[in-house]
């Protein structure tokens, strides 16, 4: 089984496709099994007068002291260095499925594309649907299909970035797989992490999924146009989020109605 994506050997691994390009499996399964079976049992039975059994089972202890996520961290740092050198402001957008990541992206790209150069990396288990939505706005986009994987990892972003040929002084939006648990542990090399929650979700979500809110810098509360119809206490939601992460910056928006988007746009513009 492949560890990056949890796929089998039947081609279920991540697929990275630039919009308009042919679909192909692009994943390096670096499973190199070098099983050197050289059994050397040094049983030297020298039967002199007394018994001297010599077992040389060379049991050794290696002090490893290595972080399990170091590979992901290493490539994330490499991505980050690339973004910094080119003054690319990279954002990692995370949320549960259906909170409106893609809708917020679409609205933002449509409203700001004349002012700022944007690039998008879309992460989903399957389909090119989101990449199609972004490409319809004439924005360069690469779709990563993780197959069975539940989150993006820095090596996938590394490969996707190579396909984008980004200009300096631009913004890269990385839309993670819709999942409020797994992506929290995987740094992609982004400058800021943006967690999106919608008013139709429970106000205690930050407490239920604290790791994601703990690692985020910005929290966008989407679908505020639905506030009259849903039973949610916005102050309580924010307090829960601040309890997990007192440094969060909030934006309250409706991606479909366009309400509140200006504050978010100002923040984006101030970053580049």
């Amino acid at each position, binding site marked *: 089984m492949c560890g990056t994506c949890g796929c089998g050997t039947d081609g279920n691994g991540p697929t990275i496709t630039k919009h308009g390009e042919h679909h192909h499996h692009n994943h390096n399964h670096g499973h190199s099994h070098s099983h050197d079976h050289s059994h050397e049992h040094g049983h030297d039975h020298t039967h002199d007068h007394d018994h001297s059994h010599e077992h040389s089972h060379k049991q050794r202890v290696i002090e490893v002291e290595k972080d399990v996520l170091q590979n992901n961290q290493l490539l994330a740092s490499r991505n980050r260095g690339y973004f910094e050198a080119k003054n690319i402001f990279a954002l990692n957008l995370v949320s549960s499925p259906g909170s409106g990541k893609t809708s917020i992206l679409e609205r933002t790209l449509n409203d700001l594309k004349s002012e700022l150069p944007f690039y998008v990396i879309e992460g989903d288990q399957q389909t090119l649907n989101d990449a199609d939505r972004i490409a319809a706005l004439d924005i360069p986009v690469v779709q990563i299909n993780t197959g069975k994987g539940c989150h993006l990892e820095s090596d996938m972003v590394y490969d996707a970035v190579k396909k984008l040929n980004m200009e300096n002084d631009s913004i890269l939006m990385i839309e993670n797989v819709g999942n409020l648990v797994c992506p929290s542990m995987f740094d992609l090399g982004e400058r800021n992490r943006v967690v999106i929650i919608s008013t139709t979700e429970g106000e205690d979500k930050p*407490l239920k999924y604290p790791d994601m809110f703990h690692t985020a810098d910005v929290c966008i509360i989407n679908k505020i146009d639905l506030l009259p119809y849903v039973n949610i206490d916005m102050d309580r939601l924010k307090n829960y989020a601040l309890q997990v992460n007192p440094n969060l910056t909030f934006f309250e928006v409706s991606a479909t109605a366009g309400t509140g988007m200006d504050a978010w746009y100002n923040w984006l513009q101030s970053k580049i």
Partner: protein
Amino acid sequence: MHELSIVMGIVKIAEDETTKVEAKEVTNIELEVGVLSGIELESFNFVWPSAVKDTVLKNAEKTIHIIKGVGKCVDCDTEFNMENVYDTCPKCNSNFKGILQGKELRVKSLEVI
């Protein structure tokens, strides 16, 4: 189920380290897992057997050291035990704290033959 990726990360480290010292397989692996690391041990143990199959870890015993969470309040300097990342200071109730330990996710040592 990011635990699978985590175990595969451990397998990668174990494979690399055993190759380095030209060992054949791992007999014991010692891990450090902090309670705030985001790892669900039940899932972790569930995916372990299938993830280590056909690797140097296939026969390895695993020893997991659980590292408890400790935070230090930024406002009043109180050190306190943490079970969740959102735990507040027991003395002044502040949300602002530094996590001193509990985020660990580390391969500590390997016993190889």
